[in-house]
């Protein structure tokens, strides 16, 4: 499937206008090897549908879970994923890198 960053931003706007609860996740920072560059985006709706990516598929599931809380509360949060977080998150980046992801609601 053909998904570009502009599709992600267009989907975020379209989904919100359709009345869905929508969150936008953005890679803020990476350390070591990371699959997607800073600024990469993932859009998530309240039903857990998503488009785009913030990693190579390693942490999207956890971001989607967190997004549900952000959609409900409206409070943005910053998530960190990496090898050291394996215990806390039960997910991590097998490449050994570390990423910070900002998750915000589209209001």
């Amino acid at each position, binding site marked *: 499937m053909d998904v*570009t*960053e502009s599709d992600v*931003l267009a989907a975020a*706007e379209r989904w*919100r*206008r359709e009345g869905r609860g929508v969150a936008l996740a953005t890679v*803020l920072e990476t350390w070591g090897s990371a699959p997607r560059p*800073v600024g990469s985006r993932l859009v998530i709706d309240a039903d857990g549908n998503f488009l785009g990516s913030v990693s190579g598929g390693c942490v999207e599931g956890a971001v989607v879970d967190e997004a549900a809380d952000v959609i409900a509360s409206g409070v943005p949060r910053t998530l960190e994923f990496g090898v050291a977080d394996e215990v806390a998150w039960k997910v991590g980046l097998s490449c050994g890198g570390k990423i910070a992801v*900002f998750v915000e609601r589209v209001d």
Partner: protein
Amino acid sequence: MRLDLLAALNAERAARRACVVVTELESGAQRLVARDQVDADPLAGAIREALAARRSRLVGEGTGRAFIAVEVPPPRMLVIGAVHISQALAPMARLAGFDLTIIDPRTAFATPERFGDVPVIAEWPDVALPAYGLDPFTALVALTHDPKVDEPALVAALKAGCFYVGALGSRRTHARRVERLQAAGLSPDLIGRIHAPIGVDIGAASPAEIAVAVLAEVIRALRSGAAHAEGVAA
């Protein structure tokens, strides 16, 4: 992100203008900074650097931390020539995220049967290019091998600062092309920006293999900071 800010951001992208979104992480406050607003922004220096490098980045410390998200227009690829290589290149380039259009004045080549839903403009480049609007976020790939068709497009792409300009043809063909472009008054620096022979050297032989080589070269130009710095500054 507020919906009105998101809509304004999508409008900037649709208009093919680079801009940034600044997010203050502590408060969550956000603003869209269009290119003509950069100088007036408190983070003007950092925004200018981020735009020039085409890299989103965090700035500041502690509660003053802010994220500068660089938003550049989606890349386009304009292919001159509805040829066999273009038939292979079109689906590959679309998969890689390029908005692809083909121009070929030869109506026998530019048919929907051969290209499906890919936009094919059956016009001479001189006629089609003004409406298309070449810009620094566009790659120009000239594949007709016919100077009458390729060269006006090459000249227009070089003058528009396209991030990639490539032309099919052997070294000998290209040497003759260079002579004609010099005679037409183009500077050696500008002519030197043409990638020819086209494509990264992977020994490509079939049309599909050549398409892979061309797409790889275009992606390399897109992802090398220099090309984009040039584009953003233009």
